[in-house]
Structure formats: C-alpha cells, structure tokens
C-alpha cells in the first residue's frame, strides 16, 4: 500500500474522527494516511515546505492565503462542526442563557471569571478573536482573568479544567476530551460558531516530489458518499460531531 | 596509660576471593611499649594493622578492645603506607581531625602551627597537600595522626620515603609520644630502625604471626628458622 502524509490540526485529531476514517480509507482505496498532528500555522508551514502531501485545517483566511501564494492548488471544503463555550458547571457568568455568542462573551467580560484563550493563532483562536471583535471588545485590554495559554486544543482544555475557566472549544474536541473535571458545555448553536474544515493538496508544481496523485485520490474519497456517511454518523455519547458538506465538483 | 587497651584478636582471618590474606591470628596487645611488625612483602603486615584499627573487615574471628568499638575508635590514629592526602592545603589537612572534634578555632590554629613546625612543613602550609614530595606527605600524615593525641597509634612504614635526618626526627617524635603514653604499633622494613625503637616485635609470614617476642629476644635469639632466614635477608615471600 502507499503512504500519504496529511498535516492536521490538534482539534481534528482530538475529535477522534480520524480513528474512524483512516481504517476505512485504507480499506477502500488502500491508502495509508500518515497524520501529522500540529498547530494550524505549523500545518501550513509543512505544506509550504512540501513536507506533507496535503493538509486539513480550519482557518479560512490562512487557507486562502496558502492557495493564493501558490502552495496549494485549491481549497476543498469537506465538513464542519461548531464551536462551543465550555465553562464551570456553576456558570458564574450565566452565559448558558445567552441569546448569541457575542452576548455570551460580553457577559464573560462583564463578570471577568477566568477565561482561557488558545492564544496560538490556530483556527479556534482566530474564531475567538473575531467573536471578541464582534462583541466590541479587545482581549489586549483584559486584565488577569484572560489567560492566553498558547497551546493546542487538548492542552488548553487541560488548563481550563485546572483553572475552572471558560474556554472556546470545538465540539468534537470537547466531547472526546477525557479530563472534563468541573467543566460543562454551556453555550452552543449560534451560527456564528460554525467551523469549516477544508482539504488542501500541496501544489505539485512547487514541489514535484509530493504525491499529488494520492492527495487527489484521498480528496476524492473524502468527498465521496462513503465518507459522508462515516462523518455524519460519527457520534460520541449519542451526539453527532461533524456535518459533511463537500460540494461535488 | 591508655584506657582502651588491651586489644584482643581472637582467631581473626581475612579472606578475599577465597584467598587467605591473614591466617587465623590470635594475639593480645596490652598497654605500654612499642611493637614492631616485620615480615617480607605481602606477608600481611598492612592487613593485620588495618584489622586491628578496624578499617579492614574481618572474615572470621573477633577484634575486641577493652571499651566499645565506637569509643575505642576515638582514641586511635593510623598512618597509611601510601599517605592519603585530603585534596586541601597542608594546613587544612592538619586542621581536619581537630575540626571533626569541634575544637575551638584558636586551639586549632595553635596546634596546627605547632605541628607544622615540628615536622618541618611550616613554609608549605598553604600548598595543596597533593603536591607535596613523597617524604613531605609522609611527615604530614604522621602529624595529622598525632594531632589527635591518640592513645594507640598505628604506623605503616612511616619512614619509607624519609631522608636520614627526617627519619631521626620522626623517631624522636615517636619516642616523645610513647613517653606521653601513646601505644605505638608499627611496621618497617628498616631492621636498624626496628631494633632502635622496638620494645617487642612480631614476625609475619604468609599472613600468620610466626614469632612474637620482646625486642631483645626477638633480635638476638630468633627462634624460628624463617625469622633467622629473614634476618639474613633470605626470605622472599
């Protein structure tokens, strides 16, 4: 069988979906997908350097820049999940009853309970920053309660668990996370929290050695009905995590 | 008068890797005098001294002082055949045994100055002891042993690397110590020195005590043929 190297972000890996998809890929098209689980920025760098054959991330602006600069040929949306607000079960900021994500953030800023930010320029972090912006707030002006921890999704959740803090996470990572401690899912469902994953094959013109043929094969599979079925039916504790939304080309 | 003697060895043996370094030895070391141990190389003199002093483990038998070991250890000093120098200055080497006993500082300093001049190292006090010449090391080791004012003093060939004048000086020091009540047990290969100093003597061969007698009888009328041969310079272990 053949190997393809795919760089993914920590939130994708932490969701556990890969453990369902990879064996199926192997079975269906005989491809060994080697996952490199790294930060969003690092994933893009690996793609730029030609060290991986494709990347799967969720940070639209960065993805578009990647394609623009010619490192990738195009961007193919595969699926989405959503971001959720996690926080202490007691919910001191009372965000559970918020009408929207922006309101939730305003409440948090109002009560100033500990809040953990990824702080690592990842897709999740960028989403959080854009939400603050929509809420008319600037994290740079926050006091000590706002903690930029500069780590991956799992590590940040661990820190939030330790601090009993609020945090923005993707639903998949949260459901698959084992160290929930006192934390609970407090708010979700605002369309603003939509989280799109996209697949980008590395441009073979920039890096002739990359296995673009395999990347295309993988992309074809990822956008196939079989993938749709697996992705849509992936559940943890009875909850669906991802929604397949690839458009046929 | 020492308080820790007599020392009794009861059937003491030292075995290492199945080899017998010290045969079964039984003896009593009572108060007063200066005992010389002679014997060819490798006959076990050093081993015997170390066993008495308690730095060499015995494989069988018992070593008993008149008082409990812990207490007895306090009143003994030992000068090793190859001097062991602390990696410190000459002065710090002399200070060390006194510091162990928490002697007040000025007593320490007077003692050190006193002993340094007695052994003729007063000009080298600041030198690292490991850099001393062979003979100087031996003298320092002796002073470091005597500065503890031991009741029993073990010396393993203390004059091997000394020049004539130093040897004479050391012998004088030893006589002084002896008069002050220190019991001395020493090995030497210098039969002249043995005769000059001994009040009684021991002859060792192959790890055993072959002959032990008061000095006069030992040197003038050796009983065993081995000791006679040794005096003639005939035995090589």
């Amino acid at each position, binding site marked *: 069988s053949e190997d393809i190297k795919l760089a993914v972000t920590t939130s994708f890996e932490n969701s556990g979906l890969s453990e369902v998809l990879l064996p199926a890929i192997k079975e269906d098209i005989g491809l060994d997908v080697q996952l490199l689980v790294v930060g969003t920025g*690092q994933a893009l760098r690996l793609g730029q350097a030609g060290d991986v054959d494709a990347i799967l991330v969720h940070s639209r602006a960065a993805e578009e820049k990647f394609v623009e600069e010619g490192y990738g040929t195009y961007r193919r949306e595969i699926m989405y999940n959503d971001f959720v607000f996690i926080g202490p079960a007691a919910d001191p900021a009372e965000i559970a009853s918020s009408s929207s994500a922006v309101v939730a953030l305003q409440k948090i800023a109002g009560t100033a309970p500990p809040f953990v930010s990824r702080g690592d320029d990842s897709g999740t972090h960028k989403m959080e920053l854009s939400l603050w912006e929509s809420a008319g707030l600037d994290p740079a002006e926050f006091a000590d309660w706002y903690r930029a921890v*500069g780590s991956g999704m799992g590590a940040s959740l661990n820190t939030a668990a330790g601090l009993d803090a609020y945090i923005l996470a993707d639903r998949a990572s949260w459901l698959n996370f084992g160290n929930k401690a006192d934390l609970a899912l407090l708010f979700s469902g605002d369309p603003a929290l939509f989280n799109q994953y996209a697949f980008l094959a590395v441009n073979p013109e920039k890096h002739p050695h990359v296995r673009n043929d395999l990347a295309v094969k993988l992309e074809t599979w990822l956008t196939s009905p079989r993938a749709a079925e697996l992705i849509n039916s992936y559940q943890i504790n009875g909850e669906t995590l991802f929604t397949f939304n690839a458009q046929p080309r | 008068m020492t308080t820790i003697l007599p020392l009794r060895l009861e059937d003491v043996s030292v075995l290492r890797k199945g080899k017998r370094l010290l045969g079964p030895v039984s003896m009593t070391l009572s108060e007063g005098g200066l005992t010389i141990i002679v014997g060819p190389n490798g006959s076990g003199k050093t081993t015997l001294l170390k066993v008495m002093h308690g730095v060499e483990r015995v494989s069988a038998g018992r070593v008993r002082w008149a008082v409990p070991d812990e207490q007895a250890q306090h009143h003994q000093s030992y000068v*090793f055949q190859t001097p062991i120098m602390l990696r410190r200055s000459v002065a710090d080497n002399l200070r060390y045994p006194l510091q*162990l006993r928490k002697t007040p500082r000025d007593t320490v300093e007077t003692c050190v100055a006193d002993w340094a001049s007695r052994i003729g190292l007063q000009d080298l006090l600041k030198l690292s002891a490991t850099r001393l010449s062979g003979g100087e090391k031996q003298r320092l080791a002796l002073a470091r042993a005597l500065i503890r004012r031991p009741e029993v003093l073990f010396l393993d060939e203390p004059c091997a690397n000394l020049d004539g004048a130093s040897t004479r000086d050391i012998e004088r020091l030893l006589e002084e110590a002896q008069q002050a009540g220190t019991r001395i047990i020493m090995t030497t290969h210098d039969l002249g020195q043995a005769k000059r100093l001994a009040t009684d003597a021991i002859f060792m061969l192959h790890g055993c005590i072959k002959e032990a007698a008061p000095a006069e009888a030992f040197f003038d009328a050796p009983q065993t043929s081995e000791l006679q041969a040794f005096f003639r310079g005939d035995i090589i272990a």
Partner: protein
Amino acid sequence: MSDIFEGLSAAFWLVVTLDPELLQISLRSLQVSLTALVIACAIALPFGTFLAIRRFRYRRLAISVLNALMGLPPVVVGLIVYILLSRSGPFGVLGLLFTPTAMVIAQVIIITPLIASITHQAMRELWAEYHDLLISLNTSAAQRIRTLIWDGRRNLLTAALAGFGRGIGEVGAIMIVGGNIDNATRVLTTAIALETGKGDFALALALGFVLIALAIGVNICIHWLSRTEREGRW
C-alpha cells in the same frame, strides 16, 4: 534554511532592542530553572554522596532505579504533578497549579535523579581515595558526606550544570503544570513551542538562540567563578 538565518537575525534584534517581553520570559526561565537547580542540588548532592559511601542491602537496586529515573519522561512528571496539584487533587487547596512554583516542583523532580546519579558517580572515585582515612578518623556519615562534597566540588560542577541544562531546556512538564500562560507562566521553552506550533519558525529559532546564549552565559559565569578558585588539578 533561510529560517535559520532569519532566526539568528531576529534573535539579534530581540536582544539588542531589549524586547521587554523577551526579557520577562527569559528572566522567568532563569528564575524557575535556577530555583529548581538549587533545590535539586540540596537534595541530590547529599543523597548521591550517601549512595557512594554507604553499602546497604539494596544499594545496587537503588542505584539502578536512580539511573532509570534519569529517564523519567517529563510529560509524565508534568501529568502527575498536574494531577496532584489540580483542584480535585490532594494538594489542590494550595492553589499552586499554573504558577511558577508548580513549574519548579516539576523541574526538581526531573533533574534531581540526574544530579544524584552524576554525583554518585563522581563521589565513588573520591570515596575510594578517602575511604580508609575517613573511617580511620572515625567520622560520622554526615561528616563524610560534607567532606566529600567539599573536596569534590569541582567534580560536582558537571552534575549541577547537567541538571541546569536539562531544566532550562525542558518543555513537556512545565507546559502541563505551568500552562504557558502569557504574562504568568510563559518561559522561553514554552514560548518556543508556541511559535513552532504557529509555524513562525524564525521567531521560535530566535527564542531558541536566546535560550542557548543564556545557557552558555550561565556556564561561562560559573566556570569563570570556579576559575577564580585555585587553578590546576585540584
């Protein structure tokens, strides 16, 4: 490749402009690692020396275990410290998690076995030399340990420096127990990991070069200090 040169020049500019954030995290790195070093030395030097001078039944086993503990994976140490210090853990009430203190604790656990092992090795030799003399002088165990540590201090330098090196370059454990919180527990290594994750390799390398320069600086200081002591063999 160009990243490396960019990193070097970025490091240069960070240093010459005395970047205040860099200064802060560098100082925190130094503070955490030096504190851990002092504590670890206070434990490991006597303990390693003790292992060198004392024969007891399970000594060989103890030494093997000590040597094996040099291989304690920092991530596991971090995890255990995290569990112990977390609110639901036995020491949760102290509120130490995500503070520099927690980072010091983790580092002490990681570097103590290393320092103790090297100490043991260095002191074994010196003990062989001093053995007869110290026994003859009827020294107590504490006196023996003190004498060996003092007279072998030059040899223990390597032990301490190895411990410092492992501490200052460590990231796995302090990431977990410190949390890499900006302005609170971010140190050089966690900042490097962060920049690496962001894909900003030049900045990561720049911080790395600062860290290496720091380590070299500390080493040269220490060597220079120990040089003012007497030169030569010992």
